[in-house]
């Protein structure tokens, strides 16, 4: 039973392997990049616009609104990172309708890489917003005794992000594989639909959690009163 697309090896030359994870990741990157480039070639500002441009606008404004709701005040600074996370994971899950495709997020390497991106991005945005001293001060926030706990929570959040996404994607494909050997026809389709739903929810969760972590790192103490007035 195949545990992850890492084990689908397409081509091997000694030490270097081209496995399913790499191939499908690059395929997704190609689809996202080339698709966006083609759609945004002639953007129009009038009421009449192509349906693909409409689709992209819905997606982008939706993500912007979600980022703003989480508490990040200038969503345009963060939308490239958070939007990419969401689009990649969502497309990786949606494409399971294509036969022969295994989501690359079903491999712990991909999800660990994504979680490491978030681990690096949180201090990056935090230092950009609050300066190095301000960001480091947030680690000793209630008292200095909390310093090791804050560091541990940072690392465990990253681990949780990686394992959560990996577990959900892998369990989806594995349930499907197991059911196909038992009841070949109707039930696997229902489970595949459930897998699509959980894939989209997990994509949303991943990006929203990343947004929440970034918001916690960029918040600082002075921003609090303004948030209370807004609410």
């Amino acid at each position: 039973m195949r545990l992850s697309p890492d084990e689908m090896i397409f081509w091997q030359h000694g030490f270097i392997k081209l496995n399913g994870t790499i191939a499908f990741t690059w395929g997704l990157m190609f689809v996202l990049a080339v698709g966006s480039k083609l759609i945004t070639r002639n953007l129009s500002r009038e009421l009449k616009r192509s349906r693909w441009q409409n689709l992209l606008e819905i997606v982008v404004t939706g993500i912007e609104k979600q980022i703003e709701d989480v508490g990040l005040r200038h969503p345009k600074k963060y939308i490239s990172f958070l939007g990419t996370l969401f689009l990649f994971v969502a497309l990786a899950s949606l494409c399971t309708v294509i036969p022969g495709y295994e989501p690359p997020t079903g491999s712990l390497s991909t999800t660990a890489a994504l979680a490491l991106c978030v681990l690096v991005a949180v201090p990056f945005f935090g230092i950009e917003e609050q300066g190095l001293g301000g960001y480091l001060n947030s680690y000793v926030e209630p008292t200095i005794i909390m310093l090791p706990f804050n560091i541990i929570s940072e690392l465990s959040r990253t681990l949780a992000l990686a394992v959560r996404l990996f577990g959900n994607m892998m369990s989806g494909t594995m349930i499907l594989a197991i059911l196909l050997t038992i009841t070949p026809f109707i039930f696997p389709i229902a489970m595949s639909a459930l897998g699509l739903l959980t894939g989209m929810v997990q994509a949303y969760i991943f990006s929203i959690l990343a947004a929440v972590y970034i918001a916690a790192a960029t918040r600082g103490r002075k921003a609090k009163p303004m948030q209370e007035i807004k609410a």
Partner: protein
Amino acid sequence: MDNMTLIAIASIVTAGLTIALGSIGPALGEGRAVATALSSLAQQPDAATTITRTLFVGLAMIESIAIYCFVVSMILIFANPFWNYVIALNAGK
């Protein structure tokens, strides 16, 4: 009972117990979370989007505990290092 049998029995029993016991807690927790979210939605329907989003985030965090148990169970069944070691040992004999 030799080593191979012992390792096999321990792995299989532990895998089953892990996922069985490990899904009780998150299931109860998620039930309580959704119940509270529904009652607060009934009290304040205007905050529906905030409540729903927070509910989903909370559910994902609770669910990840069950996912950890599932991953441990899968490792015990499919990627068990002790099993592979014992197989290699016996194949070498």
